[in-house]
């Protein structure tokens, strides 16, 4: 090779040779790219078709926006009205938080063993794994709002039905998330435990659990945060919490109170979000021995 020849010159001088040795690299549109482009085009087509089929109309959206601004005007300033109503609102908010916390914790505790049963690498056998997985899918397929309606008709109105609603719908979510975290765990620590004469439970306790516990705790914190929002909604169907008050105020067109409640919920969710973010970072970082 010539010392004075730069890489670029050498490449260009041998262009014909390089093209001959690597013909696929110089195709104008390789098959993989063509496939990706077709897929994108198909997805776009589906989107356009769906919008057309569901009567998507920009004009109605614009009109609706005008209405939205009208409501926003009515919401200013946020004002709970009377003092007694403020206390009622705060009580409702506390109840919502309690529903979210109890429902999330209960679901996490119940989903913990289910997660191990539904994970390929820690389950007892294929049948158990299949059944627990299908069961979790089934539970998850029904939204918390539907569960709330069901539980209200079973145990009556109030926060107890709310807790049960969050709990049932979250067992499915947690079971799925937990089992996926377990399946994604590194196999090497388990191999180390097995090679030392440990049984299957030892492998789970000393190989899998230390790795997945912080991940699970992160899921629980995130779901608590998300449930604070969804337990507002289930309150609307009578399962306790601030939702009932909120829907009442919307029905009676007391927009100042509505905006006060919405702001309160926003602040609460933001505070929980900030706290759980820190907790999750701490859990992921400092691992106890």
């Amino acid at each position: 090779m010539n010392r004075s020849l730069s890489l670029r010159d050498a490449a260009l001088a041998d262009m014909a040779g390089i093209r001959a040795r690597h013909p696929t690299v110089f195709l104008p549109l390789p098959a993989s790219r063509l496939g990706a482009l077709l897929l994108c085009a198909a997805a776009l087509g589906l989107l356009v078709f769906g919008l057309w089929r569901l009567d998507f109309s920009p004009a109605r959206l614009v009109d609706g926006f005008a209405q939205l601004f009208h409501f926003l005007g009515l919401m200013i300033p946020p004002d709970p009205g009377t003092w007694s109503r403020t206390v009622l609102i705060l009580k409702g908010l506390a109840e919502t938080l309690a529903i979210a916390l109890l429902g999330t914790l209960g679901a996490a505790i119940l989903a913990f063993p289910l997660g191990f049963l539904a994970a390929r690498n820690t389950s007892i056998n294929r049948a158990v794994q299949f059944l627990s997985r299908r069961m979790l899918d089934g539970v998850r397929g029904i939204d918390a709002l539907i569960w709330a309606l069901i539980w209200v008709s079973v145990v009556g109105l109030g926060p107890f039905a709310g807790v049960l609603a969050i709990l049932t719908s979250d067992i499915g979510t947690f079971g799925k998330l937990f089992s996926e975290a377990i399946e994604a765990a590194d196999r090497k620590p388990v191999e180390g435990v097995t090679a030392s004469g440990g049984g299957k439970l030892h492998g789970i306790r000393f190989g899998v659990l230390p790795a997945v516990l912080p991940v699970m705790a992160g899921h629980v914190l995130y779901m608590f945060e998300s449930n604070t929002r969804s337990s507002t909604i289930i309150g609307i169907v009578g399962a306790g919490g601030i939702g009932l008050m909120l829907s009442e105020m919307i029905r009676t067109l007391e927009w100042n109170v509505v905006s006060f409640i919405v702001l309160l919920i926003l602040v609460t969710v933001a505070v929980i979000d900030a706290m759980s973010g820190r907790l999750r970072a701490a859990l992921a970082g400092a691992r106890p021995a």
Partner: protein
Amino acid sequence: MLIIEGLTRRYGDRIAVDDVCLEVPRGSFVGVIGRSGAGKSTLLRMVNRLADPSAGRILWEGRDVTALQGRALRDWRARCAMVFQQFNLSGRLDVLTNVLVGRLNAVPAHRSLLRLWSAEDRAIALSALERFDIGELAAQRAEHLSGGQQQRVAIARALVQEPDIILADEPIASLDPRNTRVVMDALARINREFGITVLCNLHALDIARAYCDRLVGLSAGRLVFDGPPEALDAAAARELYGLEADEAVDHAPALPGPTPQVAPFALHA
């Protein structure tokens, strides 16, 4: 010519690189040696500006590169290519695209982001791969390659930047002996054929002796040795490596029998 003047980097109270001065003429192959944690990596990363100096200057052809920002900084980084210990390839991308990443600075963003590489750039990348006997791997995913192959892809990526300097940060520390030779030979060839300056961090002294025409020794961030490999005798090596001397020298026959020096250090009580 690369000139480093009083370069210092502090991390809190700890000084990683302490007042290092160095002049590297074009086309030289310089080995930076010293024990782990001596500041070799930080020194190299500061030249590429992956780390910013706390004090001191880096000059290339008389131009201060320590204060560069934005476009000018990216242009400088393209001129001093970096090769990492862990290769730092994008594992799920094919080998050719990984090499073409080295052309990013020379291609308009709208073309590179859509991966619309010109035939010329593809040819340059393939030519670089063929140079290291891995042209036939161009279409494979980078993560499916062996360590030695991945490091050669990384060197090809560095080479297509058409750089003036290549900074190699422990390029062989994750490789077996056979691949060590292949990778070091690749760096030596780049240095010889294209006259590219190579600054290479090395832990193993025998490799440094075999490939470099000049050695620079760092100890606790300070420059304690600078000279040709022949000048680094057993005593100097021991000063540089302390307890690790025997491990770093790797039973080099030039050294007298092993005489572990435990005196200045206390082992774990």
